């Protein structure tokens, strides 16, 4: 609606349910904090038609009022951001606790205790990159906060990061701004639990001790994975304004929003590493951002042939929903393939691309099952080529099988993990972005 207002015409959105907070945050993010809207109590999508009509009728007076109001609304001032904050306590720990209490109240953290971002700590972190502290890395989605190097360092300090982590965090922040349309804005604000996953390739993974084996769990082995991921998440919150119920509108949420930063286990991979697939040199250090929307363990209990391992994996990725816009498709899949799966496949002379093509060929899904999520009648998100589905019976739709992925290029293989053939599959998309880290290293 802001685009319509920019074009010189009055515009109001009807905002449903808890999206009131989203409207406040979005109007600020997109430069029109004065924007007016009308709130109805319940989200329309799953309401019966009669209820959609009823709650709209109750809102019509407010709609008219907002479209014809002659009152000059007082401009909404942006919240003031004090550069420094002071906390007093009986000792250092008490003061730090007061800071944590206050930051928790303002939802600036992730729920765990935060490290105080003192001037000295932030200055130490700034020494980890060659960029000046006032350099603007990007306007960070979804709320388009101005991501200076110093703001990134402050959030890295909150997370307990070290100076040598800074180039990875900066590259990840930059990468997020390059994902999808308008920086992945609408995706991050979705009610589905999309969350970033960071994958580091190249020499810096070993330099920093980023775990490439059992890389996604808690504990000592993943300390660096956790801290870098946490620093990135806190940047998303406090620079990208990814605050729950404001610009992060998840219905249930996900633990994947405790973002992790893992490394590819390049040493045991039979193939070129992922960043080489993305056009970088093997000796480059990079971070790739995947946006994941779920997670599934695909176990293998004894296949030893490449075909057996790959078919099991192909069948394992056939879940989820199918998009009926354009060519259609079930999104993308990030496959974290452990050495005990990747090794035998590579030894049987499957290139990575051949493995992707094999998976694509065998990963078919019932169109009836995968489109059940969306009643087709009256649905705008059905392209003309799929309209014929409306005239079929449910049984007929269930019998149609389609490749779950539009193409082999919609699956990404990264070799990660310890021993044992347990693959982690993530529905994902849009396409990952890979950013070079070396440009930010001192």
């Amino acid at each position: 609606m802001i685009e319509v207002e920019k074009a010189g015409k009055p515009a109001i959105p009807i905002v449903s349910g808890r999206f009131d907070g989203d409207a406040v945050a979005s109007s600020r993010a997109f430069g029109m904090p004065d924007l007016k809207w009308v709130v109805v109590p319940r989200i329309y999508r799953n309401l019966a038609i009669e209820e959609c009509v009823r709650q709209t009728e109750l809102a019509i007076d407010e709609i008219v009022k907002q479209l014809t109001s002659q009152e000059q609304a007082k401009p909404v001032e942006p919240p003031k951001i004090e550069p420094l904050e002071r906390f007093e306590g009986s000792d250092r720990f008490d003061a730090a606790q007061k800071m944590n209490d206050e930051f928790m109240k303002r939802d600036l953290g992730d729920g765990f205790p935060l490290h105080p971002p003192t001037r000295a700590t932030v200055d130490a972190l700034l020494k980890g990159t060659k960029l000046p502290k006032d350099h603007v890395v990007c306007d960070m989605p979804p709320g388009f906060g101005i991501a200076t190097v110093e703001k990134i360092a402050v959030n890295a300090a909150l997370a307990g990061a070290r100076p040598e982590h800074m180039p990875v965090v900066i590259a990840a922040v930059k990468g997020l701004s390059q994902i999808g349309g308008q920086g992945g804005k609408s995706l991050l604000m979705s009610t589905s639990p999309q969350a970033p996953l960071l994958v580091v390739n190249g020499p810096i993974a070993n330099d920093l001790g980023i775990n490439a084996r059992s890389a996604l769990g808690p504990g000592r082995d993943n300390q660096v994975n956790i801290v870098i991921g946490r620093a990135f998440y806190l940047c998303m919150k406090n620079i990208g304004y990814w605050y729950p119920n404001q610009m992060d509108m998840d219905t249930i949420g996900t633990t994947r929003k405790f973002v992790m930063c893992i490394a590819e286990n390049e040493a045991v991979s039979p193939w070129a590493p992922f960043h080489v697939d993305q056009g970088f040199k093997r000796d480059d250090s990079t971070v790739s951002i995947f946006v994941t929307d779920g997670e599934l363990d695909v176990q293998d209990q004894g296949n030893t042939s490449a075909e057996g391992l790959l078919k099991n994996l192909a069948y394992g990725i056939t879940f989820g929903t199918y998009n009926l816009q354009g060519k259609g498709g079930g999104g993308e899949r990030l496959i974290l393939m452990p050495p005990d799966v990747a090794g035998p496949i590579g030894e049987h002379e499957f290139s990575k691309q051949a493995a992707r093509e094999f998976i694509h060929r065998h990963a078919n899904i019932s169109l009836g099952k995968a489109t059940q999520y969306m009643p087709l009648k009256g649905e705008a998100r059905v392209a003309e080529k799929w309209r014929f589905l409306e005239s079929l019976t449910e049984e007929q739709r269930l019998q149609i099988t389609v490749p779950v992925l539009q193409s082999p290029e919609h699956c990404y293989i990264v070799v990660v993990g310890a021993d044992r053939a347990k693959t982690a599959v993530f529905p994902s998309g849009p396409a990952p972005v890979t950013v070079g880290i070396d440009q930010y290293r001192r």
Partner: protein
Amino acid sequence: MHVLEVLNPVAPQRGSVSTLRLTPRPRSLDNKTVGLVWSGTHGGDVALKRAGEMLQERFKGVRVNFYTGGNYPTPPDVLKKAATESDVVIGATAD
């Protein structure tokens, strides 16, 4: 007594650096064209069409145009068309 001074982790938003003001509203919707922009989600179309009907009942000579890009966010060309052809626009975030 210990004083802890820390830097604020919150960044200013680009949108708060350069803000836009609202477009002046008409005094009445009589003889106006109302654009309804649907994001493609179920129920939003029902709501917008009912709102359009009610405005036609309340005001004289109201014309209603319906627009959709089939999904959200609504594509810029659809929003531009709605803005060009309408006097006021109503949208729905029906997610």
